[in-house]
C-alpha cells in the first residue's frame, strides 16, 4: 500500500519532468530550458558549492519568518478562536493581510525597516501568518460542543479542555494551515530577495536571468520547490507523530 503510493508519486514526478523536457525541446520559448539542462546547472551549482552559500542566505529570513509565523500565528489563532471579542479585534487585520497585494507593500516595508533581514522576515510573515491564524481560529471555533461538554462534565479544568480537547481536535486544520502558510512563506522569501535586495537564491534567479543563463535560473527555482516539498513532508511526519488518531478518520459520520 505504502509502496504503491510512493510509486504513484514517482510516476507523477516523471510525467511532469517529461513534459518539461518536451516543452524545453520544442522549445516553447528561448528562455525556457529543458529539464536535463536545468538539472545539469543544478549539479554544477551543487558541486561548486554556490547553491549552499545561496541557501545559507535565503534560509535565514525563511526559517525565522516561518518559525515566527507558526508560533505567533497558532498562538493568536487559538486566542481569536476562543474569544469572540478578540476575533473582532484581530480577525479583520489578518483577512486584510491575506488579501493585500504584497509586492506593492514592499516599498513601504523597506522605507520603515530598511533593506536588511528585518524587512525580509516581515515579507515571509505577511505571506505565511494570515492563513495560519485564520485556519487555527476557525478550527478552534469548530471544536464539537459535545466534546467540550464531555470534558467539562468529567471535571476537566479550562486548561485541560484546551490541551486535551480543543488543540487535538483542531490539529488537522491547524496543520493544513501550517502547510499552506509554509508554502506561502517560501514564496515570500524568494519574493523578498527579488524585490528588496538580491541575495541567496533570489540572487541566483535574478542574476542568471540578466545574463540569459536560463538553466541556472530554472535550477534555482526547481531547488526551492524541492526544498518546500521536503519541508512539507517533514511537517506531515510531525503531525502523524503528534496526533496519531487524527489521520484515521472522524467519528462524526
Amino acid at each position, binding site marked *: 500500500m505504502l509502496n504503491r503510493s510512493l510509486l504513484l508519486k514517482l510516476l507523477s514526478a516523471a510525467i511532469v519532468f517529461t513534459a518539461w523536457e518536451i516543452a524545453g525541446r520544442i522549445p516553447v520559448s528561448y528562455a525556457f530550458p529543458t529539464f536535463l539542462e536545468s538539472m545539469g546547472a543544478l549539479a554544477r551549482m551543487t558541486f561548486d558549492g554556490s547553491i549552499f552559500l545561496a541557501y545559507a542566505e535565503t534560509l535565514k529570513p525563511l526559517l525565522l519568518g516561518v518559525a515566527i509565523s507558526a508560533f505567533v500565528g497558532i498562538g493568536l489563532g487559538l486566542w481569536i478562536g476562543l474569544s469572540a471579542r478578540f476575533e473582532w479585534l484581530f480577525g479583520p487585520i489578518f483577512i486584510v493581510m491575506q488579501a493585500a497585494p504584497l509586492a506593492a507593500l514592499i516599498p513601504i516595508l523597506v522605507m520603515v525597516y530598511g533593506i536588511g533581514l528585518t524587512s525580509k522576515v516581515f515579507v515571509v510573515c505577511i505571506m505565511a501568518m494570515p492563513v495560519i491564524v485564520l485556519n487555527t481560529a476557525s478550527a478552534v471555533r469548530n471544536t*464539537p460542543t*459535545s*466534546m467540550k*461538554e*464531555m*470534558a*467539562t*462534565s*468529567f*471535571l*476537566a479544568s479550562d486548561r*485541560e479542555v484546551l490541551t*486535551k*480537547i480543543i488543540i*487535538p*481536535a483542531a*490539529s488537522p486544520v491547524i496543520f493544513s494551515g501550517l502547510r499552506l502558510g509554509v508554502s506561502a512563506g517560501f514564496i515570500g522569501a524568494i519574493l523578498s530577495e527579488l524585490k528588496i535586495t538580491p541575495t541567496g537564491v533570489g540572487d541566483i534567479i535574478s542574476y542568471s536571468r540578466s545574463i540569459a543563463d536560463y538553466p541556472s535560473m530554472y535550477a534555482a527555482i526547481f531547488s526551492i520547490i524541492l526544498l518546500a516539498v521536503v519541508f512539507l513532508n517533514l511537517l506531515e511526519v510531525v503531525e502523524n507523530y503528534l*496526533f*496519531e*488518531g*487524527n489521520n*484515521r*478518520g*472522524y*467519528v*462524526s*459520520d
Partner: protein
Amino acid sequence: MSQINPASLKEATPAVDSAVSVRNVSKNYGDVQALKDLSLEFPRGELTSLLGPSGCGKTTLLKIIAGLLPQTSGQIEVNGKTVNGPGPDRAFVFQDFALLPWASVLRNVAFGLELRGVAKSEREAIAEKYIREVGLAGFEKKFPHQLSGGMRQRVGLARALSVNAQVLLLDEPFSAVDEQTRRKFQEDLLQLVANEKKTFIFVTHSIEEAVYVSDQIAILLPRPSRVSEIIRPSSFRGKGVENIRRDPEYLDIVDEIWASLRSYVE
C-alpha cells in the same frame, strides 16, 4: 396495576430516598422560558425517564442536573448537596457519544479517570474492566471510527461507568443507533440498573423505550416546560425482559402517554 399520579408539587415531596432532587428550577434563554418552576424527585437506585415532545426542555433539565448549564433560579441537590457545576457524583452519556477520535477505546474509556488524575496503570486497569463489562473486550486498541454506532455508545457508557459516579445521566443515548442494537441496549440497561445500584436519569423521546426501561416516567410538557405527570409502572418489571412488550400494563401506559402527548406534537 398501573399507578398514575397527577404530579403536583406537593405530592412529589420525598416519601422515598431521593438521589437527586430538583426544586423549583426555572431556566430562561433571554426572553424564552425553557423551564418553569419545575420540581422532581429521582429515587435512589432507580431509573427515571424524562419523556416529552421535542422542545420540552428535557435535555436542558438533564444538562442543568449535570452542572453543564446554570439554572436561572431554583435548586438542584444530589445526595443532599447543592449542585454548582459538574461533580464526581454524576457522569454523562452523550447522544452523539462525544468520543475522542484521536484516542483508542482504552484511552477514551479511561478519559474521565485521566481528568481526575488517576495514575495511568490504575486507570487503564479500571477501564479494561468496564470495557469487558459492556462487551467490548478485544477492542481496547481500536479507534472510534473503526467501531459501529452501537459499539461507540458502549464506549461512552463504559467511560461513564468507570468514574464510578452514583448518578448516571443519559441524554437520548440510543437515538443514534439502529433499532436492533437499541433493543439490545435497552435489555442491557435493565440489567445494569439491577446490578449497579446507581441512579439513572434517562432522556428519551421514545414512549416505548421510556416505558420499557423506567421505574418512573416523568412526562414533561413544553412551553414553558413543566412536569405534567409521573407514572410508575408496577407489575411487569419482574416478569422478565422478553415479556414486557406483551404485558397489558405496558401497552396501556404506552397508549395513555401517547394520548396525553399527541396534542403537543405538530
